[in-house]
Each structure stands twice: as structure tokens, then as C-alpha cells.
């Protein structure tokens, strides 16, 4: 093709129609988009008088600066993936500016009925299978204009579908990459049928100057399914990151969800775990490191709809320079969800006097016979520890790194995937400078 198609600029009605025209997808999926686009039109951007946005200032964000996802040039290079290094993978996908450019799956997994690949491809080929799950409850939560935008213009990302009883031994990997000023509206959907097992490692990278991510993650676990899910947000420190993430666990399902939050200029993430069936168990691990003027806001929800479920959340963050972390956590226990065991904790380590952290735990309990605990701590690097380590020959920077890695050890001890622990530890270690009490 030689003619250059001129795409209308910005996220306009015109652009939306052009975007739809260029796509091949089931009619029901297009209908979802239209509904989301209408919702987008009705809504306003979040304001600072809303509790959820009180601490997160997005006045500098301008959607007009961006375009709906555009086709990428073939020679554009992918940044390296941290979580895949040295790991034997069962399959991988990669996207650049929301366009899937790599999609591979071990044929032996495909033969067992496992579906894994770019979202568009799986949706085209297996639309009927996905229909009951796709764009479901996680997107219905769409309580703000960002999720509506995502619902209308989502593209790229990946789908993993694991049939009943199938165990995927080797991890699968999803990379979402951005170029300068690029836009990523990718969506990750995981459907784990009854008794299935898998490990999915997802990460983001790149962004150069001023890129924009508005994404969604939906994890659906049928009874007895087991999923280890990792989402590492590792954009350049220039990227605007908005994300809606939800997991729904049926009875006796087990989820280990590890979040790494290292990148982005500003991130606003809603991470929700809904325990819908008796005896489900979710462990949530958060590892955050911020520097410069980064602002990361994570709003977590552990909702116990059914009884006898366990949810255990531990977020740990270290803050350098003038950065800021906001964590607002909520455990909700619905009426009748007796026998609930819920835990949430957030610890922050300040590496500078100019950093700031806000930890706001919350409980809403409407059932009897529940055990819910929460806590948060903020601490500083202790000069006595630095001196002790230095007296053993470690430089000030090595001492700082060791103390920070010790701070994270408690959450690393919970992560059962070696490569993830190592990658997170190394990525953080590279960014730590020597601690000075300033």
C-alpha cells in the first residue's frame, strides 16, 4: 500500500468511527465499544474534590495531545523484557503502541486447547468462546472517564484461556511497549477454567517522552483454578498510566498477584480482587519504587462476597527524591461472608525528606465471624544501619541498597517465582543512589 491514510486527530467521534472501520471483530465487541464511547461522551474528567482523586493531580494531563493507536512501522524495536530473562517460556506476546507484533505459543499447549495471543486475534478466532467473559464485570466497574476511553478504544494486549484441568507449567509472557509519545490502550484477559493452572508474567516498558497508557486487566478464575499473575509497570518515568484491574475468584480458586510499580510519571491504578466463591484465596504482593517527581497511586479492594475466603495484601514501597506514593486499601466483607480472613498492610521506606507517602487502609465489614486486620508503617533509613554496614566495608550506596533490599525481603519472600524476585530486586537496585539525610 502506498497511499498514506490520514487519520483524524485526537479522540473524536470521527476518529472513533475511523478506528472501528479499520477493525475486524465480532459485532458484540463493537457494540461494547459504542456503549463505552457514549459513556465517555457523557462523563467528565475526574476532579480533585472526588475522594479517589484528592491526592492525585491530573490537571497536566491532556488527552488532546494523543491519537488513537496507530499502526507501527515494522522496524520499530522492542525494549528488553526484564521478567523473561533466562526463563523458559511456554509462549509470549509483545505489542508496541497497542499493536501486537509478536505472538507465540508452544504447540503442545495449543494442542491441549490453550489459547494465547494478541487480543484481536483471539477475539476474531474464538469470539463465541470469549463472549461470556470479555469486557465483563471488570469493565462494568468503569467508574471514570479513563475506563470509558479504554472500553471504546482498547487495542492490543493479550488473551489467555486455559481449558478445564489443563496445567500450563511454563510461564507465559506479555510485553506492552511504548515509543515516544505513543499510546497504549491494551487489555489483558485471563480465563482459567475449572481446576486449570498457569503463570502469566506481564510487563510494560518504554515510553520515551510523554506517552500514555490507559489499560485494563481482567482475571477470571473458575472453581479450583490456580493462577500466578505478575504485572510489572516499568514504563519510563514520563508516561501517564491509568489502569483498571480486577480478578474474580470462584470457589476454591487461588491467585497470587504480584504488582511491581517502578515506572510512570503518574500512575493511578485500581486493583480489585473479588472473592465470589467459597474458599477462594488471594495473595496480593506489591513492590513499588519511586524517584524524581513520580507519583504512583494504587487503590486496592479486597471484596469478600462469599464466606471462608482468604485475602492477604502486602504492599511495600521505597521512595527517593520528591516522589510520592498513595495507597488506599479497602477490605469489604459482604453480608453472609462469614469466616472471612482478610489482611492488608502497606509499608513505606523514605529515602529522602522530600518524598511523601499516604497510606489509607479501610475496612467495611457486614458479616459476622470475620478476621480482618490492617496496618501501615512509614520509616526512614536509619543512619546507624548505614554506619554498621560501612564499618564492614560496604560503600554508602551499597549499604543503602542492602538496607532497601532488606526492607523488601518480606514481600520478596512471598513471591514464588525466582525470576520475578530477581528482576524486581535488580531493577530497584540499579535505581538506588546513596542515602543522604536531605
Amino acid at each position, binding site marked *: 500500500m502506498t497511499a498514506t491514510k490520514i487519520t483524524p486527530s485526537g479522540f473524536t467521534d470521527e476518529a472513533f468511527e475511523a478506528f472501528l472501520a479499520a477493525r475486524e471483530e465480532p459485532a458484540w465487541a463493537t457494540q461494547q465499544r459504542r456503549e463505552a464511547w457514549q459513556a465517555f461522551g457523557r462523563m467528565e474528567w475526574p476532579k480533585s474534590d472526588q475522594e479517589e482523586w484528592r491526592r492525585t493531580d491530573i490537571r497536566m494531563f491532556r488527552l488532546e495531545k494523543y491519537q488513537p493507536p496507530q499502526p507501527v512501522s515494522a522496524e520499530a524495536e522492542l525494549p528488553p523484557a526484564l521478567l523473561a530473562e533466562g526463563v523458559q517460556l511456554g509462549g509470549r506476546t509483545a505489542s508496541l503502541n497497542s499493536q501486537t507484533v509478536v505472538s507465540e505459543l508452544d504447540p503442545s499447549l495449543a494442542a491441549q486447547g490453550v489459547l494465547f495471543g494478541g487480543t484481536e486475534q483471539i477475539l476474531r478466532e474464538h469470539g463465541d468462546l470469549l463472549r461470556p467473559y470479555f469486557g465483563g464485570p471488570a469493565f462494568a466497574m468503569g467508574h471514570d472517564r479513563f475506563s470509558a476511553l479504554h472500553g471504546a478504544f482498547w487495542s492490543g494486549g493479550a488473551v489467555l484461556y486455559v481449558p478445564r484441568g489443563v496445567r500450563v507449567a511454563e510461564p507465559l509472557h506479555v510485553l506492552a511497549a511504548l515509543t515516544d509519545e505513543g499510546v497504549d490502550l491494551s487489555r489483558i484477559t485471563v480465563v482459567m477454567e475449572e481446576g486449570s493452572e498457569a503463570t502469566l508474567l506481564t510487563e510494560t516498558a518504554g515510553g520515551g517522552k510523554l506517552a500514555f497508557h490507559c489499560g485494563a486487566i481482567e482475571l477470571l478464575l473458575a472453581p479450583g483454578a490456580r493462577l500466578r499473575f505478575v504485572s510489572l509497570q516499568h514504563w519510563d518515568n514520563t508516561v501517564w498510566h491509568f489502569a483498571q484491574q480486577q480478578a474474580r475468584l470462584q470457589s476454591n480458586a487461588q491467585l497470587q498477584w504480584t504488582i511491581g510499580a517502578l515506572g510512570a510519571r503518574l500512575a493511578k491504578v485500581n486493583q480489585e480482587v473479588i472473592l465470589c466463591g467459597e474458599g477462594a484465596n488471594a495473595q496480593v504482593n506489591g513492590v513499588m519504587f519511586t524517584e524524581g517527581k513520580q507519583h504512583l497511586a494504587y487503590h486496592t479492594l479486597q471484596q469478600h462476597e462469599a464466606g471462608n475466603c482468604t485475602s492477604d495484601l502486602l504492599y511495600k514501597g521505597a521512595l527517593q527524591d520528591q516522589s510520592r506514593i498513595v495507597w488506599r486499601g479497602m477490605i469489604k466483607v459482604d453480608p453472609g461472608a462469614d469466616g472471612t480472613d482478610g489482611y492488608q498492610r502497606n509499608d513505606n521506606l523514605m529515602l529522602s525528606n522530600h518524598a511523601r507517602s499516604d497510606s489509607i487502609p479501610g475496612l467495611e465489614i457486614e458479616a459476622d465471624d470475620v478476621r480482618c486486620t490492617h496496618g501501615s508503617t512509614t520509616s526512614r533509613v*536509619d*543512619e*546507624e*544501619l548505614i*554506619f*554498621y*554496614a*560501612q*564499618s*564492614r*566495608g*560496604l*560503600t*554508602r*550506596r*551499597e*549499604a543503602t541498597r*542492602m*538496607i532497601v*533490599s*532488606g*526492607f*523488601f*525481603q*518480606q514481600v520478596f519472600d512471598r513471591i514464588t517465582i525466582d525470576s520475578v524476585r530477581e528482576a524486581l530486586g535488580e531493577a530497584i537496585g540499579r535505581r538506588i543512589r546513596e542515602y543522604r539525610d536531605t
Partner: protein
Amino acid sequence: MSDQEVQTDILKIEDLHVSVGGKPILKGVNLEIRRGETHALMGPNGSGKSTLGMAIMGHPGYEVTQGAVWINDENILEMGPDERARRGLFMAFQRPVAIPGVRLADFLRHATTNVRRPERREGEELLPMREFRKELREKMAQLRMDPEFARRYVNEGFSGGEMKRAEILQMAMLRPKFAILDETDSGLDVDAVRLASQSIAEIGRSKMGILIITHHDKLLENNVPDKTHVMLGGRIVETGGPELARELHANGYDRIRADHPEAAAEEEAMRQDGALQKAM
């Protein structure tokens, strides 16, 4: 090569004045330790023994207002604590701090690498894991420490005795030229002190200069001091041989105070100052 031709390393403390929080604590300390020598430093509580150790090691809260500390011809006061460690200086602390989440083995592997390869730069290879582990296990066995101990976090939840033993283990791994042992016998039971005393002697055989700060004579059993120094009111007021250590252990410091009324007055002033500060 004959012994005379070997240049022995020397740690030399010259007219050292140290203040803490603006308050003068050490008022001119002079001390010379050669590698291979053992010195005992005694003195009543609050006389400034730990302050001397901390200042030599380079704790930022201990401000040197006058004097110098030399290792051979280098004034180490211009160096950070890590550089001093790499020059072969070590201090076993009276009250070691805990480093949560950092395993003793990992900490020591890093420390041992840096001290044994002083020219190592950040990010360069550490000592090979297998060799290091083997050596660490051997040293722990000598100190009758459970090998599992290395997997615990540095000093976290250690008993007083475990902490002191871990300090000796670190010294054994780092093989310093000069070691200051600050009340390494406190918190240990009789058997543990004997073991510590033997271990220190064994490690010291590789020609270490040792300054043992103690109130007792048990640690000195296997480490007979070439010299015993007595500190009072921030000064070394007397220096003698092993018999001085024995005398002080048996009879206390009354004779010292009587013989050095000026230093005793300093001591009294410091004590009142401290009591006053506590009261405020």
C-alpha cells in the same frame, strides 16, 4: 626475609579529641598498636572507651575536634568508615544494630569481598559463592555456631550472646589488621567467653593488632595483653602490663581515681552532665 626487614603495620592515635553532640568526651588520647600486639583498654563506665572506638571507626556522630589517627603513614580520619574497613580496621560493637531482611551470609559475602579486595568497585563480582560458603561454614563450626545462623537476618532477634558471637564471626571472615573489641565478652556466659577468648587468639595469630575493651579478665586469658591502658574522664591515665588488668579486675578503679584526681574530677563532671541531660 628476617623479621627486622618486615615493616610492621602500626595504628597510631595522636592527641585525639572527640565531641559528641558538641560535648567534649575525649580530651587528648594517645595510643600506639602494632600488628601482632594485644592491648587491653579498661576504665569505668562512661570514661570514653566506646567513644574512642567509634571515632577510630568513623561514626559520623563522633566529631574529632583535634588530633589524628594513622595507619602507617595515612591519616584515616579523612576516610569514610568503609575505606577504613578496607584499610584493615575492624570494630566489634558493644551494641550491634539489626539490619532487617538482610541475611548474615549475604551481608558478610559483600563485606568480605570488599575488605579482601579493597580495590573492588561497586557492581563488580563478589567472592565465588561456593568458596565463600565453605569458608563461612568452617568459621562457624570453629565458633560452634549453627550453620542455619547464616540465613538469619543480621542481628535481628539475636540474643546478646549470639550478637557478640556474630561480631567475632565477622572479624574472622574479614581478617582485619587491627581490631577493636568493645565489651565483646558482655552478654556471654562463662563457656561462651572462653570460646570467644580462644577464637580471638586463633584469629589474632595471623598478626592482628587488637584493642580489647573489657571489664573482666576472662577474655584476656588467651589474649594476654602486651599493654593495659586505663581510661578515666576521657584520657588514658595509666599504662601497664597484664598485671594492671588483673589489679583493676580485682580491686576496681578507686586507686586510679585517687592517683589521678584531675581525671577523676573530669569524670565526675561528665557524669553530672550526663545525669543532667537525662533529667531534662
